[in-house]
């Protein structure tokens, strides 16, 4: 579970330095009036505001029901049937129409019940590079001793269908396309169901307090690492690194998916992790000011990201100098994650205290 930020999320968008591209740009192309109006409507009618503390339990006040197009067609059919019953004095016709009317009312309550008391907790969201797909994990729990079928989660244009057994829970993965670096909030998530008859849609909108760190996109064809700055040349070492394939060992949950031996797994074998013996001991220094002066901020961040990735792959130790910070020499995935995080948040308030 990511830590709750002390500052509200909105600060991400305010007071951004020139040239900084926020993770989720507001659409200024829309009429300026529409956005505050929509926000008011959301807050007043749908009670959608800032991210909510978890777990988010769907109470009756935040579940909405409306007929689907199929439901409207059903209602029209019932009306025609009612008129036929009146016209031909069909007592049982009335009864059938009223029964089906009752069924649609009951189906509304079923749809509502299918969402009621469903509980959502934000799960993991591993950092990704801009342009990759972020995977938000949302943990959903059903405390009712009854199955909840045919639910859908919609977020960031993705639809995740799911169902939960009685008293069960599950982990939903919401993919989201990332555009720029920085924090990317999961944002508004819509849970909906048209169970049981597809006549009524019940939905609820939630804003889980969940965000994913988006690193700058690594430059596709970066110049070679500034080897000139490196002091010691690498020597072969027995310790594990990323360079040369050295063997397989059983998979552990913390292993990077990049190192999983997918081919073995695809052949029906066990889940294994590839081990590499790498170069150990090389040191380089990555300095913001060494870049050509005409390179803009994002391009610098992008190149630095590419270098950090390359350095980590080669098992080099590296240090970082940014205009507002210095990061001491270090190596390993944790060190590079810290550096990448600094790059991702460069120029934002959240970046300075990270």
């Amino acid at each position, binding site marked *: 579970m990511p830590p709750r930020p002390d500052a509200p999320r909105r600060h991400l968008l305010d007071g951004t330095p020139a040239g900084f591209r926020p993770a989720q740009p507001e659409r200024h192309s829309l009429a300026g009036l529409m956005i505050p109006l929509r926000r008011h409507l959301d807050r007043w009618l749908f009670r959608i505001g800032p991210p909510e503390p978890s777990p988010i339990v769907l109470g*009756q006040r935040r579940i909405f029901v409306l007929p689907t197009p*199929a439901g409207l*067609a*059903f209602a029209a*059919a019932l009306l*025609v*049937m009612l*008129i*036929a*019953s*009146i*016209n*031909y*004095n*069909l*007592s*049982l*016709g*009335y*009864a*059938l*129409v*009223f*029964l*089906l*009317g*009752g*069924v*649609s*009312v*009951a*189906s509304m*309550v*079923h749809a*509502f*019940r299918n969402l*009621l*008391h469903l509980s959502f907790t934000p799960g993991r969201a591993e950092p990704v590079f801009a342009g990759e797909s972020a995977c938000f994990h949302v943990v959903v729990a059903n*405390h*009712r*001793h*009854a*199955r909840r*079928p*045919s639910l859908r989660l919609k977020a960031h244009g993705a639809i995740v269908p799911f*169902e939960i057994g009685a008293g069960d829970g599950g982990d939903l993965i919401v993919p989201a396309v990332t555009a720029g670096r920085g924090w990317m909030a999961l944002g508004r998530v819509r849970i909906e169901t*048209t*169970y*049981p*008859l*597809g*006549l009524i849609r019940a939905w609820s909108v939630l804003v889980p307090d969940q965000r994913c760190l988006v690193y700058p996109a690594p430059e596709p064809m970066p110049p070679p690492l500034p080897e000139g700055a490196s002091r010691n040349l690498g020597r072969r070492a027995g310790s594990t690194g990323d360079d040369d394939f050295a063997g397989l060992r059983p998979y552990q949950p913390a292993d990077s998916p990049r190192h999983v031996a997918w081919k073995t797994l695809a052949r029906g074998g066990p889940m294994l992790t590839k081990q590499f013996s790498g170069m150990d001991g090389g040191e380089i220094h990555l300095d913001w000011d060494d870049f050509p002066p005409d390179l803009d901020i994002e391009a610098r961040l992008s190149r630095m990201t590419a270098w950090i990735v390359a350095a980590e792959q080669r098992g080099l130790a590296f240090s970082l100098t940014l205009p507002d910070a210095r990061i001491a020499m270090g190596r390993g995935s944790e060190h590079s994650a810290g550096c990448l995080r600094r790059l991702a948040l460069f120029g934002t308030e959240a970046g300075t205290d990270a």
Partner: protein
Amino acid sequence: MRDARSPAPAQFGWLLAAVAATLAPHAMELPYWLVILCAGLIAIRGALLWRRGTPPRQLLILLVAVAAGIGVRFEFGHFFGKDPGVALLAVLLCLKLLESRNTRDLRAAVLLAYFLQLGLFFYNQTPGIAALALAGSLLTTTSLLSLEDAAARPAAQLRASALLLAQGLPFMLVLFVLFPRVQGPLWGLPTDAYSGMTGLSDTMTPGSISQLGLSDAIAFRAEFNGAPPPPSRRYWRGPVLTRYDGRSWRPGFSTIAAAPRYQPSGRAYEYRLTLEPHNQPWLLALDFPAANIPKARYAGDYRLLAEQPVRARTRFDLRSYPATAVGKDESTIVLAEARRLPANFNPRSTALAHEIAAGTSDPATILARALERMRGMDLTYTLSPPLLGTHSVDEFLFDTRQGFCEHFASAFVFLMRAAGVPARVVTGYQGGEINPVDGSLVVRQSDAHAWAEVWLAERGWIRVDPTALSAPARIESGLSAALQDWDALPLLRRPGMDWLRDVRYRWEALSNTWNQWVLGYNPERQRDLLERIGFPQPDWRTLAMLLGISAAGLMMMLLAWAFAQRHRHDPLDAAWARFSGKLARHGAARHPWEGPLDYGKRLAMTFPEHAEPLRSISEGYANLRYGAEPANPHRVRLLARSIRRLKLK
């Protein structure tokens, strides 16, 4: 976007079953070629499903649809009205099913299936048909549900839709009783709207009544307030036929007034008549109805008439005086019509009449002689009389000597007229049987009868039943007793079928209740009911208010069901939840990742003064929950008790 999915075979299967169940009861009413077409289309769909084939081309389906449309046009002569409408819908449903590729198609088919379930009631509204329609609705609803929840097992899908139907049922009852009823039709109906109704017509030709004699259908029911009249006095008057053209009898001149033309006298019978719709204005009252019957008018020939043809099952509260003398002051126009005979018909009968009238001009003597002669002619009463030619009376009296009541009545009236006595044919029903279960008198179409009325100057119109001369049992005991050859009788009228009759009586008592309360529930009944439960002069506002209150009440119950967390059946879980809840109120809620032992340790540190009980409860729970042995119920109870008694400061 979702609707573009192509449905799974199981989802199709439900719809296929629903369509088959919906169309099967229609098979009786639809033209046979259409039934074969529909069955074929359903079978093709089933085969495609089985072999996972793709639906046929749309052009082909369009061609079949056009061909079926043309066929329906030829069959019925038009497109409008219920019969061609139902036929077209049936074909459309089968074709829709055949061409369905995605869920949207299936939804459209579902709506058509619901329509056709309503269409069943055009022909028949018995409890049996209602049950068939309900079964069809259940299957159709299940197919709708399977589109949403394809993952569930079929039994679970069926159960879920049965639950929906069960929850819709209270709404149905409330709406059925309280929805403001409008007496239809809202606009002019197509001509075939009432084609299904049987009953007497206002013309009589030889054979027209014996046709009804084969029908077991109920014409009306009468519930007498007190003892019913004896069978020989149960003459229910229908059309009175005066004009005769040598073959058929038609109604003559008759006035229509708001009051009867007679002074009721003698013993009165009070009864409630529940008339099946027959699409005619006459009410088939027992002779002779009292004055001031609401919404009724009085014809000069003593029929009681409704303002509109009776097109729905209707109830009338009536009173009749069978002993009333009528017609002493009959108008000369009517009498002249009652003497008129077409020339050149039935020469032998005319000669017989002259022979009867020879030497007397007293109508009473002529009447007595005529009855005597007919009794001596050895005429046979039968349901299947031979066909008659031009001189129908002659052939009946002298050649075939076999006839049904219309032959007897028509021959007798002919003789009387030929002898110069005013006479006319009266059609209606005679007799009826008492249903021993609920005591009501049931009169069937097979009780249809024709008799004669003769006018005597000093007595007015008197009833003469010539059938009684040859088959007295017809009047006393009904049709089956009068016929020797009961092969042609409806099954249930045959002797020796007593047990079957008993079943039938029970069934009919039930269906009488059904008719009165379900099918006959109309604006008046609704008003009666509301007045009875304490709403004087209810109007639509009362109905709307009651409807709103009841619907809100039902909605609350449904919501209460939705909110109800199913009770945990495990007392151990319940006790543990109670424990965690109790401590959560003291600010020490259990973290989701915290096991019972860790939780206990933390609690013991947080509340040092209660360390001992807190730890022992947590350990007790952990032992019972995760121990090797299944939890001992006694120890679970002990734990639950110690949790209940736990008090924190």
